[in-house]
Each structure stands twice: as C-alpha cells, then as structure tokens.
C-alpha cells in the first residue's frame, strides 16, 4: 500500500514549519477567498501522516473552505497547498487524485446506476482511454465494497438505498480510488444518529486497519473528540488550537471557539473528552461569550 511511502522533502528554511518533519499534506500561509470575500488569511496547517484529523469550528468559520483548499478544489489567493512537497495546484489532476481522495458534501448519483458501477468509478484516476478496466480494478472495487459493508448491495440501484447505505457507497467509491490520504467533507450531515455513528466507526476502522490518513470536517464536537486522533479547531479563519482531543478539548477552548459555556467530562464509554453544555440558567447569568464584542470578528 502506498500509504507507507516516505516522500522526500526539501525543507524551505524560511517557513516556520521547517523545524518539524514535513508531513505529506499541508497548507502554507494560504489566503482563502471566494472572489472578493476573504475567508482566511495567512493560514498554515499540517495534517499529521496516518492521523485521523478532524477540523471543527462554528458555522462559517472556514473549515469547509480549508478542506476545499487542501483538496485542490479551491485555489488559494496567496500561499500554497503542499502535497508531498509539491504545490498541489501545479500537479496533474489525475496524479493528485491517485494520492488524495475526497468525499464531497453533495454528490449526485446518476439515475439508474448500480452500487458496483458507482464504486467502480473510483478507479477513474488509475485508468486511461485504452486501459479502462484491469483485474486489479475489479479486485479493488470488490475489496472497497467489502470493507464498507456494501458488497451484498452490489447489484442494487443506488437511488433505492437509504441515506446511510448511500453514504457507505460513496465512501466505498472514495476507497476504490486507493489514495493514502482521504478527505471527508461533513460525512455525517443529513444522517440520523445511528448512521452517523456507523459512518464514523467505519472511518475509524479504515484509519486503524488500512493506515490511511483521514481528514474530516465534522459539526459535532463530541463526535470529533471521540474519533479524532488529531483535532484542529478553527474560528474566524484562524487555527485556534490543534493537537490530540484530550489536550485540545477543554471548557476554555470550547468557550473561545464556539462561544458556549460548558463542562468537559470524560466520556464514560471511551474516556475521551465529552462536552456538556451549561444549563440555560447558568448561561443566562452572564452574557454568552459569543455575543461579546471581544469575540466578534
């Protein structure tokens, strides 16, 4: 598996990141903007290899934008995103797609496509006009469906499936791409609670058993704290804190990032931090920090 490849980097002495071992994927002082609207300025972030990194933050904090930049979909106005030491935007599209996979927030399953055919599309970056389907493609598609538990649905139509099953199929397609890095943009949105946990369990399993580097944007801080090995907290386009959830998730940080007063206790199941929002009365006694001018951007 290519996840164990150790790329060689030429560290650039002028960047603050050079002291650390350069990771495979990172953003180097990027300014992210949609046309004139700047979302983040001079943002630097590195994704630790083989981690399950989760990016959290309030709505419109720039976390999805950051993920879009890391996945090559948004070109930074300034700075660059580095993949294996190379600027991702100067690399050939298919080459990036063989290293870096992405599960977008919204994809459209074409009418009348079967599960197996949709998963098979994940092989696209490995194929060419005259090399469309190798026995290896066949095997990888089968493995991807098995590891996501959709192998028995192979001949079903995607539009007949439930939301949770469909999300598993999309994940299977991303897996079939066989990329050592996989980015997931809010993979649990629109799913009910058991399917959310189901998808996150699947991600954790893929991370542990296949050694892939996973980067996900998640809304639910408790999910993030439970599943992530590395957490990046973003607010107003800035990284407020990063590190293992047990160090990062504190009552103070939650208040700073989300403007929510809370207690952080140990999750009785996993021992990971669990955020318990303060009661209504407790919050009413003092003005909510989110509304104080100091925290308004």
């Amino acid at each position, binding site marked *: 598996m290519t996840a164990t490849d150790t790329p060689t980097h030429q560290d650039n002495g002028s960047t603050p990141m050079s002291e650390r071992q350069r990771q495979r994927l990172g953003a180097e002082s990027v300014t992210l903007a949609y046309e004139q609207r700047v979302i983040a300025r001079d943002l630097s972030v590195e994704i630790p290899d083989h981690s399950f990194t989760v990016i959290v933050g309030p709505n419109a904090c720039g976390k999805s934008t950051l993920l879009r930049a890391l996945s090559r979909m948004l070109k930074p106005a300034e700075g660059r995103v580095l993949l294996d030491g190379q600027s991702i935007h100067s690399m050939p*599209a298919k080459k990036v797609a063989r290293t870096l996979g992405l599960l977008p927030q919204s994809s459209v399953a*074409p009418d009348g496509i079967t599960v197996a055919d949709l998963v098979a*599309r994940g092989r696209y970056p490995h194929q060419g*006009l005259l090399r469309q*389907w190798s026995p290896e493609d066949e095997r990888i598609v089968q493995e991807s469906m098995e590891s996501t538990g959709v192998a028995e649905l192979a001949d079903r139509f995607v539009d007949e499936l439930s939301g949770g099953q469909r999300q598993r199929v999309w994940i299977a397609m991303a897996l079939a791409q066989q990329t050592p890095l996989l980015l997931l943009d809010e993979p649990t949105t629109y799913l009910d609670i058991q399917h959310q946990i189901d998808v996150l369990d699947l991600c954790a399993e893929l991370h542990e058993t296949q050694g892939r580097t996973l980067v996900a944007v998640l809304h639910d801080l408790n999910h993030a704290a439970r599943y992530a090995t590395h957490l990046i907290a973003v607010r107003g386009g800035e990284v407020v804190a990063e590190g293992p959830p047990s160090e990062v998730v504190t009552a103070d940080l939650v208040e700073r990032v989300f403007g929510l007063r809370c207690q952080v206790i140990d999750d009785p199941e996993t021992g990971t931090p669990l955020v318990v929002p303060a009661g209504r009365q407790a919050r009413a006694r003092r003005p909510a920090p989110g509304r104080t001018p100091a925290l308004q951007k």
Partner: protein
Amino acid sequence: MTTKTLRGGGLSVRYAPRAALVVLGLLLAALALSVVLVGSGDFPMTPAEVLDTLLGNGTPVQEFAVTELRLPRVLVALLVGAALALGGAVFQSISRNPLGSPDVIGFGQGASVGALTVIVLFQGSAVATALGAVGGGVLTGVVIYLLAWKRGVHGYRLVLVGIGAAAMLTSVIHYLITKASLVDATRATLWMTGSLEGRDWTQFWPLLAVSCVLVPLVLGHGRALRMLEMGDDAAYALGVKVERTRIVLMASAVLLVAVATSAAGPIVFVSLSAPQLARRLTRAPGPNLAASAVMGSALLLGADWIATNAFGDRRLPVGVVTGVLGGCYLLWLLVSERRAGRI
C-alpha cells in the same frame, strides 16, 4: 455487473453489452433506412437494386439517381442526425437536465438568425448562408456561456439563460422576415423549416470533415463527462479537469449543432429526443454518447422517410415531421418530469 471488459496486450476497454447491442442495432436500422430512402422517389428502386448500384453494377440511370441525387442527401441526413444528437447528449449531460438541449436553449435559433441575416440583409448565396448559420450558432454559444458562467456553468442557469436567449432570438428571426422582400422571405422560411431536399455533395464534405474531428473528440471525453454527472466536486476528486473538459465538450457540441444546422436548416427536436430515447434503450446511466449519435441518425432518416412517403405525392420538409414527433415527445417529457416532481 452490467459491464463487460475486452482485454488484450495490456489494454482494456469496458462496455455495457446492452448498450453495445443498442448501438449496433440502431446503426443497422439507420443503414437499412438509408438503403430504403435511396431507393424511394419518382424513380423507385428495390433495396437489392440500390445495393447493386452502390457496388457499381447499376445502369447509368440508376447510377445517376443514386450517386448524384439520393446518396448525398441520405449521407447528409446520417451525419446531421448524429451531430444534432451528439450535441444534444453533451448539453443535456452538462446541464443535468433533459431540457438543456441545443434546440431548446437557443443554439438552433442562433444559427437561424445567422443564416437569415445573410439571406435577408445580404441576399447571400447558399454557401454564405451556411457560413452565416455556423457563425450565428457559435456566437450564440459564446454569449450563452458567458451569461450562464458563474464560477463554472451550472445546469439550471444554462437552461434558463438559454430559454431566454431562444425567445429573444426567435423575435429577431420574425423581425428579419418582416424586413425581407417576398423572394427572400420565402427562401428564409424554407430554410427555417429544415429540409434535406436538394442536399448534395457540397453539403456533405464539410459536414464530414467537421464530424471526423469533433465526433472522436467528444467520444474521447465521454468518460470524463460521465464523472461530471456526479457533480463538479466528485469529478474534481477523481482527477477530472472539470472546467477544461466542459469547455472542450461545449465548444464541440456547439460547432456540431451549428454545422449540422447550416447543412439542413434548424431541424428541431432531434437533439432533444435522441439522447433520451437512447438512454431508455440502453438503460445505462451516463451520457450514452455513441448510442445517442446513431439514434439521431436513425430518427432523422425515419422522419425523412415519413416526410417523403407517408403523404402520397406530397413531400413534406423533414423538419415538419421531426417537429410534430418531437412536440409529442416534449409534451410527454414535461408530463413525466412533472410527475417525478422535477419541474
């Protein structure tokens, strides 16, 4: 799995057996219709005689009727049908909407304005008219693309902008006809109906040249187009050069439609219906480009046969038949889309 693979020497091609059969069947149907059409007219010939003549064993009269009069017309129909349908398949796929077809979103009308401008304002020759049609179609394509572009082209924007453009261009067409002298107006109206009458080798060669370049180009981008149907983000993630693929395909489709229109006039509804009919036959997801193209040829030849034979001595322009057939299809499409809650 619904697909099979052909392998050899490290190369492999993936195909759906049903889709391949559909393509083959439609191709045979189109060829059979061609033979029948070559044989029908004031000087009828049996299919066997037609084939014999094509092989060079006909009498001089048969030879003349076939190679000088009827064969070019049928070949023009084959290519025009394929070009219109391929253009339609590309646009319907890019707009992710069965209504996002060149004849609905203004390209046909644009080509007509170009042609009519040449006929009415400059009294131009047939060649100039054809060039005017190509110019009008391409110009309309560029304008619609620019108007619909907002960080990429999106389905509904393209359809809505296109329908608006089509309405405006239609009024320009009417204006041009009111300005025309009686002779020019008759010529313009005839052109507008879309007809294969009197088409000869001078229409066929440019059409063939353009098709030889653009058809392989479009088919070669078919796999990328299939990825695009899952949304821009998903296509990006798979390494498709989204915007470049779209521009290449749209430009090719606009050119194909414009050149087809310049050869036979604005034959309506082939672009709209052929891709959808092909899809229903192949039952395969994706743009079904090859099946659409042969379906377009078969449809146009079928319509031409109806136009020349179904009404006794009265030969109708083929555009009238495709208009009537396509109108019924459009109604059915609107009703079924409405039932599915999509419009």
